């Protein structure tokens, strides 16, 4: 089972990573959701002692690891929070840029940087040669 869980979590993680690299912002968020699912699965797997639900443990049977369940719950909730937030950012991006493409965003940023660089003179002011010869 160790291998199975590792494989499953890694596969989900890999697909998520691939999605984050795509051009479509909705798919990027989907990728983040997958990565978070993968992390939760790892959390659950890290306490992989199958057993009864840890409710009213009698002591006869070893219950499943309750601590990782608590951690997984927390992680799931946090995953929900970041997903909602990411989606909101994406919605704002779409509303402002009228596009859901990462490329569009990058281009916008590149233009912004270029404008900044152009609007200001270069930092290093090179001396004119003749001026340097014997100034004043």
């Amino acid at each position, binding site marked *: 089972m160790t291998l199975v869980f590792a494989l499953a979590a890694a596969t989900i993680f890999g697909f998520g990573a691939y999605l984050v690299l795509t051009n479509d912002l909705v798919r990027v968020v989907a990728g983040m959701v997958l990565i978070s699912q993968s992390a939760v699965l790892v959390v659950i797997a890290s306490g992989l002692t199958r057993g009864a*639900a840890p*409710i009213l443990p009698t002591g006869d049977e070893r219950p499943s690891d309750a601590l990782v369940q608590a951690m997984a*719950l927390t992680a799931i*909730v946090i995953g929900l929070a970041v997903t*909602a937030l990411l989606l*909101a950012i994406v*919605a*704002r991006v779409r*509303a*402002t840029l009228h596009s859901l493409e990462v490329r569009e965003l990058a281009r916008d940023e590149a233009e912004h940087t270029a404008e900044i660089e152009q609007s200001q003179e270069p930092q290093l002011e090179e001396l004119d040669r003749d001026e340097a010869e014997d100034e004043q």
Partner: protein
Amino acid sequence: MTILTEAVARLLLAPSLMVAAAILIKGYVDVGDGFAAAVVVSLAIALQYLAFGARRAEQELPVLRFAPQTAIVGLLVALSSGFFAVISGGAPFTHEPSVGARVVRIGRLELMTAVSFDFGIFLLIAGALVALIHHLAEPPELEPDLEEDAEAAR
């Protein structure tokens, strides 16, 4: 939406609130807690939004308007039940009644700090999710609200 969905939505509201209450109360004994209960409630309300549309849903349930405030009140309730013990010198999240002490019960509901903590979480999550649903029901707003800006500047 059809009349059928509206009817179903209306019919489902009360039972889902009951389910949520059950999940909340028996949390310490069985599966479920304040968080799950809150999600159930907010899903029931989301159903109202889907069935009636945002405006009508909010007209029929004017109490929804207080969702953000509810969320913050919930947070403060949870925070204070977590930290009130500090006032008397105890550790945070100290549990009252303490280990081994007798627990007062009302029916199956045991009165203890963990329950009020859970209730705070319920309020917080329910309020927050309802607020989220409310805002998602309309597309994002981009224009700056000028009159409010002017007001804030004062």
